[in-house]
């Protein structure tokens, strides 16, 4: 009897192992398609703290380049952003990061404020699946899940992605235990050029009030930073495509909020010329997002603000840190110059 019980336990354990393996196999690897899905998880590989933490959507992870900020100002930074990262995603990611480090400044891109309710399960997944389990992740899940989503499927992603058994590729085996590194401290490089050809503005809206749901999380981010003595900076990336249009009415509300709480708010849209952005060369998708050339210009410009107005000091004299960042820079230039696939 004892032998039989042991045998049954063995089978159950083997089954659990097989299930774990299958789970690893079927979850999306985001290696060649929807690569943004890997951004959030890459933060955990960081070994040194940062002066500046960026949080937000594609307008941060494609508009600022931490290697440039280091190269030009000696400022260390990380971008914790992902595709359609909503305000509550940013809040919980920030909460998680501030448990590990205390930067001098936190920069939040305000475009996501326009969304007051969860938008898409796919984007939720790309942001939340990469987070490690913590109270922050649980909070983020509770705030983000749409009606059709279940908490259990985040605990056991097999329940969500089991249907991928029929589309498994070599990539799923290649990245079974690791993930493809796709960013440079959270910056996802785009080297292509596709000029902006239209100045079409966004369609008129019925109501321009920024949703209460997102504004509440903005306030929570502000309080979190205030509690830790961190400068909380609001920015709007210079891109202003009609699909992701930034209305003046929204801008006025953010400005009013920033002034009310003595926060710095930089809307880069009217500053494009001053920054030097050339829409015929500095965007890879017709003006919706910046490419690496535009991102470097914006980072240079913003770096001056961080170093000058906010008084952030560089760390180039720190040999150990310099060595680490030199490696990051090398990797960055390898990709930029096309010497790395």
């Amino acid at each position, binding site marked *: 009897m004892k032998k039989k019980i042991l045998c049954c336990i063995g*089978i159950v354990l083997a089954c659990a192992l*097989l299930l774990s393996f299958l789970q690893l196999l079927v979850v999306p690897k985001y290696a060649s398609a929807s690569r943004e899905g890997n951004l959030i998880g890459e933060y955990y590989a960081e070994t040194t703290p940062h002066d500046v933490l960026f949080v937000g959507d594609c307008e941060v992870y494609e508009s600022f380049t931490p290697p440039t900020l280091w190269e030009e100002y000696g400022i260390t930074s990380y971008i914790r952003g992902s595709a359609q990262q909503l305000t509550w995603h940013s809040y919980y990611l920030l909460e998680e990061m501030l448990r590990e480090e205390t930067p001098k400044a936190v920069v939040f891109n305000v475009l996501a404020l326009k969304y007051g309710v969860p938008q898409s399960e796919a984007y939720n997944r790309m942001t939340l699946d990469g987070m490690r389990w913590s109270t922050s992740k649980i909070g983020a899940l509770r705030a983000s899940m749409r009606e059709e989503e*279940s908490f259990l499927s985040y605990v056991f992603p*097999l329940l*969500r992605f089991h249907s991928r058994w029929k589309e498994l590729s070599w990539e799923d085996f290649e990245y079974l235990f690791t993930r493809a590194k796709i960013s440079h401290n959270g910056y996802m490089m785009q080297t292509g050029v596709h000029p902006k050809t239209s100045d079409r503005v966004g369609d008129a809206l019925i109501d321009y009030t920024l949703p209460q749901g997102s504004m509440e999380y903005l306030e929570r981010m502000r309080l979190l930073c205030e509690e830790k003595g961190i400068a909380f900076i609001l920015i709007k990336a210079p891109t202003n495509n009609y699909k992701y249009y930034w209305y003046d009415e929204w801008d006025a509300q953010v400005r009013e909020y920033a002034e009310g709480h003595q926060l710095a708010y930089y809307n880069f849209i009217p500053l494009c010329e001053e920054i030097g952005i050339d829409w015929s060369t500095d965007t890879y998708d017709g003006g919706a997002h910046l490419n690496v050339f535009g991102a470097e210009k914006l980072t240079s410009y913003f770096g001056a603000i961080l170093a000058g107005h906010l008084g952030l000091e560089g760390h180039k004299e720190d040999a150990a840190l310099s060595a680490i960042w030199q490696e990051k820079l090398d990797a960055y230039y390898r990709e930029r110059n096309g010497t790395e696939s």
Partner: protein
Amino acid sequence: MTFTSASFLLFAALTVLLYFTVPRRGQWWVLLVASYVFYLFAGVEYLAFLLYATVVSYVVARLMQARADAEDAFVEANRDRLEKSERKAFRAKEKKKRFFILVGGLVAGFGMLAVLKYTGFAAGIVCAAWTGMGNEPFEIPDLLLPLGISFYTFQAMGYLIDVYRKNARAERNFFRFALFISYFPQLIQGPISRFEALSEQLFATHAWDATRVRSGLARVLWGFFKKLVVADTAMIAVKTLVTGSDTYTGAYVFLLILLYSAQIYGDFTGGIDVTIGLSEILGIRVAENFNRPFSSKSTKEYWRRWHITMGTWFTDYVFYPLSVCSPMQRFSKFSRAKLGNAIGKRLPVYVATVATWFLTGLWHGAGWNFIVWGLLNCLVILVSQELTPLYDRFHAKFPRLVASGAYGVFQMARTFLLMGLIRSLDCYRDVGKTFSLWFSMLTDWNLPQLLTGGWRTLGLTGAEWCMLGLAILLVFAVSLAGKKRPVREWLSTRPVTFTLCACGLILLILLFGAYGIGYDASQFIYNQF
């Protein structure tokens, strides 16, 4: 809370845990509370209807029982004083009184079902006639249809008839009776149980029995496999074929017949497996509802094997009473006198058969497709009955052929396809369209198109088609292997093999099941009845 949801699994696990934790005398209370909690999950608004059916049938049964007890007591007390004929007359008088009470109960019970389920359908017919006369259409009411109402109403009404016939004694304890009506594993899709059989099980005490629990668990898992891997995967292609029925004609209709057969078999038998398996874990034996229906060699046999409890309900409570009721006896006499013995003898039986199948169709749904479905089944049965002498002559002429396995397979395939063809009325819903699609199988020769790539357009990938085919084969193989003794019974006595198979099944369900986002997780088809 569908059987395949995570919340149901948690709910069932907690119920089982509590059931075997409380003192055994209180086990049925756990089931009663669990049943009402389960039904509350469907919607608090449905509860009133379940309570109504319970209270009405409880009161009516108690009234009939009181009269029956008084009748028996009177007869017993006056056995010496009354002549046999007097006793008979007294009993007949009392039976009539009980009959009126029964009719009151049936009207109240079926009345609720009729109002909720058929008002819209009847109003639709009236509206069509009304507009046909050149009037403005009126709004057709869209009434609430409580989950499982057809099942629990039929169970309650069957109980009333049993009490009237003195086949069952009315339950004195209201809460026990409430459990009989609401027992959650079978509440929403049957089987339709009889009071005498189920109450004995429900109110007995049950100890934990590892072998029995293993057997029940195996059945639950097998039910999940049939529902999630077979039925819900087939459903994807079925849905595509139905929504695109203008394009998918000819060979595609034939494919739909095959796929829908797999879907409804997996769906309904899967759900019943969960019901029976869960009951088995609790120590409660629930009536079987299926007995390898696709191995039937005739339509009559098929209906003895498919949805057995519904079939026996209609036979016992509709067909037999209708066949022997006084008006039918008079009709029988009349038809024999006027049409001769051969036709006159059959006619009343045929009338009762047509009425029974009409009601069976109506039970399945308020729609012409269901009525036509019932009547077509009836037609096939009656025609086969009429052709029986011809079959007998053929069988006598070719005894070797009839004895061969191939002829048996032919009979099974014929019955399967015939039933599948009629069943497709359930998919297309529109009777005219269904008939034209059947006709297209003879006129649209598009089999090459289906085979050379058409199958790819039906929502399933090549890998999924293969997986579905293998899953159907597995179901077929298990059914075949369990012909003498159910496979799970064999497994329940072998813990190691059981664990291996259970783990394997869980893996298959988790990986290949059609559940979660990306799939339109369907309710069990019979939940809608």
